[in-house]
């Protein structure tokens, strides 16, 4: 086993014990849709850490995230949050951006963001305040009173992000949040994610833009054929002088060669 091919869980050992409480872990997740899709996926995202989830199409990223968010039930293994099995009450505090975007097309932008804030338990005032701030931050201020269907896809994507962020989530699970965004929006979102992480929130997102992952993430997990094949902090992974792209290619090919 090459040094980077290891369970990511081991990389949390340098953390002070107190912060272990805010860690998101998956333990040996298994799922099969006729053929096995997840074959024992274990990963850990520490509080305040931005975790990049990388892998080829169909490798199991989305399935893992859907299991974390309770959309799918695993055949085996479990999701842990703060050391405990994740339940509905805890999951309510999470923010989720699904792979297939979904919004009420005929609802107005600001109303929609506020609605999701209320559903997550915010008071009307808090929801309105959070909506105002996000709309400003994500460059949607001028579109706030338009219906979602009137927006371009890129702007709809920003609304989707606002919906995931409005309740000030304790964990962020974002499935390809950068796809479809222009460079300015990519920067704005990257900044928002770093900021949330600085507040102690574990952030996990999937992406195919490896240089973006390298730039934004503290640690990375590479998944291939339903297994984590490489993982660690970005610095650790690059210690051999290789780029993430090279590691990714090697990991994917190594897996395919088996």
């Amino acid at each position, binding site marked *: 086993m090459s040094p980077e091919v290891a369970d990511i869980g081991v990389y949390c050992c340098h953390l002070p014990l107190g912060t272990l409480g805010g860690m998101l872990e998956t333990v040996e997740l298994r799922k099969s849709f006729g053929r096995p899709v997840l074959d024992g996926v274990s990963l850990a995202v520490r509080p305040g850490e931005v975790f990049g989830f990388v892998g080829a199409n169909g490798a199991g990223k989305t399935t893992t995230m*859907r299991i974390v*968010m*309770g*959309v799918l039930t695993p055949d085996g293994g479990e999701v842990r949050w703060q050391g405990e099995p994740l339940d*509905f009450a805890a*999951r*309510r505090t*999470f923010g*989720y951006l*699904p792979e*297939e*975007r*979904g*919004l*009420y*097309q*005929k*609802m107005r932008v600001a109303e929609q963001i506020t*609605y*999701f804030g*209320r*559903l*997550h*338990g915010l008071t009307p005032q808090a929801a309105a305040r959070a909506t105002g701030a996000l709309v400003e931050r994500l460059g949607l201020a001028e579109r706030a009173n338009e219906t979602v269907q009137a927006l371009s896809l890129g702007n709809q994507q920003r609304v989707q992000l606002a*919906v*995931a962020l409005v309740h000030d989530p304790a964990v962020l699970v974002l499935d390809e949040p950068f796809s479809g965004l222009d460079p300015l929006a990519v920067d704005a979102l990257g900044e928002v994610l770093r900021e949330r992480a600085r507040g102690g929130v574990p952030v996990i997102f999937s992406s195919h833009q490896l240089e973006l992952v390298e730039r934004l993430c503290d640690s990375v997990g590479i998944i291939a054929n339903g297994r984590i094949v490489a993982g660690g902090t970005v610095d650790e992974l690059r210690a051999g002088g290789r780029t993430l792209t090279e590691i990714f290619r090697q990991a994917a090919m190594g897996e395919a060669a088996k």
Partner: protein
Amino acid sequence: MNALLLVARREIVAQVRTRAFAIGLAVMVLLVGGATFAPKLFGGPDSYALGTVGTSALQIQDAKWTTYRDEASATKALKDGDVDAVIAGKKVLSNGELDPKLDALLQSANAQAQIKAAGLTITPLNVVSVGPGADAEHTRRGLAFIVVLVLFMLIISTPMMVAMGVVEEKGSRIVEILFTTVRPWQLLGGKILGLGAVGLINLAGVIAAGLVAATASGLAADLPPGLAGIVAGVVVWFILGYTFFAALAAALGSLVSRQEEVGNALAPMTTLIVVAYGVAFYALGDPGSTVARVVSLLPPFSAIVMPVRTAAADVALWEVAVSGVLLLAAVAGIVLLGARIYERAVLRTGARVRIGDVLKSS
């Protein structure tokens, strides 16, 4: 605010804002208002316009008399429709066949006038009704007809909105985000509650339109004495019937992922409602028949047939009670089953989900 109420409020706001809601309400109000006015427009007149040529007017209640110089001018007035009949000496002139009721009135008034002229006085018979008058009976059938129409339209269209909402959320995968913070029963319950409120707004609009039109046209005088009870009954039956069909529509809707498939998926529900509608129409003509009595006890058909029967005729209280209890039990059953199907099917996007698969899987 609780998640269920938040969902319900969103549904109400989303519907009430649409143009379809405003148009639908306007159409129903006009339809019911028109149907209430119709008997006034197409029914017989309450008073007659009569004429005389060379004779004196007879004593007929509510008649308006005109005197004509000769038969020629009277004939012209008849042909122009200015007057219903003209008495000319011993003749009654009319344009075509004389209205039988007017004929009887004229003959009896003429007889009385001649008897009086002969110096005799007769005491006319005084009719005292111990049952509803013919007019009231007629009005009551009309009322029942409107009840059938309104319940049919609302009970088919409101659950359809539930199904469309379910498919909108399923097809766009909003449901995946919603379920991370809302329980399936809260989402479904809020949707049924909110759209039910929209249905009630429609119903209230229709009832108000009917009552205003009935008062304006003078028809209100003929309405049965238990009108408030009938109206309250219609509202209660609507709530029960709507809840039944809304739960069914949500379950059937959750099986498909695209709006185009909704109509097809709802076929079992629409069939049930159309059958109920057919029986209700039959019950309208013969509210006391065995078929009407049996079906008005049978859920879910009772939701439409029973209110029609109570509107068309008096129904024994025990029958209403049995029908209500049975329907309530059926509503409870279908809500539990529907919620179960919905919860399991709504996350399975893609091809149409088979209902058997949903019930089998744990």
